[in-house]
């Protein structure tokens, strides 16, 4: 293991791999990524991997749009020998209350101002896209055909391999255990396999990000929350888009190999680092699908699992440098949408670290907003 690096990135998920790739592409040498398990073993490898531009805040719309534009060309840009499997069959958002229909209309105004091609749909139009959708219980729908989902393992692998080709060193099964600072500046990282001196540390440890912040005495109002998901046996193609509802609290997609993947949020989920699965989730999920998309409930479940969301008070990420420890950067708090922001996480963090002109101005996603109360509440999350 090296004992000196230009930058040490903690976390080998989509965020850490994308940050490493972007820094290396911009010419930084001696970059190390620490991953306490294997690459993509955290939330990224457990996620739904959906990407959508249909957001409610201008900031999220802009980040998501740029990320999707990247994903559309990811195989070429990252020169990936496999395929990130971007299936762009749209996101069909459905609402079961008039209130939510109004929210969709407001969101679409914001989306259109950012150049996002989303539209309101009548229930008949929604049924043309997903014929077995039970519209009796719905009030309205919105759609964007360029939304979709990818293979999260291949996508992370593509960033990982591209970064490796550019000289980034990945130390797997290597855990960051401490961070040293001197006079308010980062000087190095302690790991279970030795010490690496560096003046730049990036915290991309997601669910474990808070404990990494503790290492420099930085208190950040983030917490982790369990989210569950399940997959069915594969069947013939029957559903093109991701179907999602904030009010009814679910998302469901059919993957290219034919299995359905679905999840839901739950306020009562444990707010700690547990990733066990529960029967209760299975039952609530099954009841919702039986009601909204009846034919899908004929399918057999083959596996369920859980992962962690890293939540902020306004459900938007944090991209910033710590004030009390210069050289300590944070890319955290993705609140359940860090996979789709992955490309921009890498671009924005590398520009911040190298003090370059930003592609998207993400300065509002600073740490200070939790003190000043200048939050940017995102209304549309599951």
């Amino acid at each position, binding site marked *: 293991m090296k004992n000196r690096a230009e930058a040490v990135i903690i976390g080998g998920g989509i965020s850490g791999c994308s940050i490493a790739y972007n820094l290396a592409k911009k010419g930084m040498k001696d970059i190390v990524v620490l991953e306490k398990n*294997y690459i993509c073993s955290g939330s990224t490898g457990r996620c739904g991997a959906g990407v959508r531009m249909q957001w409610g805040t201008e900031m999220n719309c802009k980040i998501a749009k740029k990320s999707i534009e990247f994903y559309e060309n990811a195989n070429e840009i990252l020169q990936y020998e496999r395929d990130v499997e971007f299936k762009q069959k749209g996101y069909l958002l459905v609402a079961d209350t008039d209130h939510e229909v109004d929210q969709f209309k407001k969101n679409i105004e914001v989306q259109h101002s950012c150049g996002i091609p989303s539209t309101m749909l009548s229930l008949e139009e929604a049924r043309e896209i997903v014929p077995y959708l039970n519209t009796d219980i719905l009030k309205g729908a919105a759609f964007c055909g360029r939304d979709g989902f990818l293979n999260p393992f291949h996508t992370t692998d593509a960033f990982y391999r591209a970064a490796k080709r550019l000289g980034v060193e990945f130390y797997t099964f290597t855990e960051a255990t401490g961070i040293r600072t001197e006079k308010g500046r980062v000087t190095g990282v302690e790991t279970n396999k030795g010490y690496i001196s560096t003046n730049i540390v990036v915290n991309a440890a997601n669910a474990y990000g808070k404990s990494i912040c503790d290492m420099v005495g930085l208190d950040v109002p983030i917490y982790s929350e369990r989210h569950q998901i399940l997959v069915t046996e594969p069947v013939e193609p029957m559903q093109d888009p991701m179907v999602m509802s904030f009010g009814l609290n679910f998302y469901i997609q059919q993957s290219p190999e034919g299995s359905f993947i679905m999840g839901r949020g739950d306020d009562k989920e444990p707010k700690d680092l547990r990733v066990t699965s529960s029967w209760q989730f*299975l039952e609530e999920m099954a009841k919702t699908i039986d009601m909204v998309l009846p034919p899908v*409930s004929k*399918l057999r*479940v083959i*596996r369920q699992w859980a992962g962690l969301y890293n939540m902020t008070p306004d459900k938007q990420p944090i991209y910033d440098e710590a004030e009390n420890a210069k050289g300590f950067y944070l890319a955290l708090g993705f609140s359940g949408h860090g996979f789709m922001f992955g490309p921009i996480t890498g671009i924005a963090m590398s520009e911040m670290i190298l003090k370059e002109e930003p592609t998207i101005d993400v300065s509002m996603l600073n740490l200070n907003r939790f003190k000043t109360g200048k939050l940017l509440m995102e209304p549309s999350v599951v």
Partner: protein
Amino acid sequence: MDENTIICRCSDVTLKEIRDLISQGYLTFDEIKRITRAGMGPCQGKTCGHLIMREIANATGQNIKDIKFQTNRPPVVGVKLGLIAEEGRNEE
């Protein structure tokens, strides 16, 4: 064994693909599963899991007993969603 032998019948993965990944440094069952989908099919690795673990053991000189297989999770494989929903409603 012929390298074109299908090791994972559920997800259509050949021995060659498994060996190529191992030689590229993907040395855990979970990593190989995530890249190839081997072990993610309807049988959940009951057929292919042992074969893949044996390949990892051979390549790394480990004992097959020390190779970690994926976590076993609920539910009992193969229950229809509709049945789970019905059970849930009956309890209410």
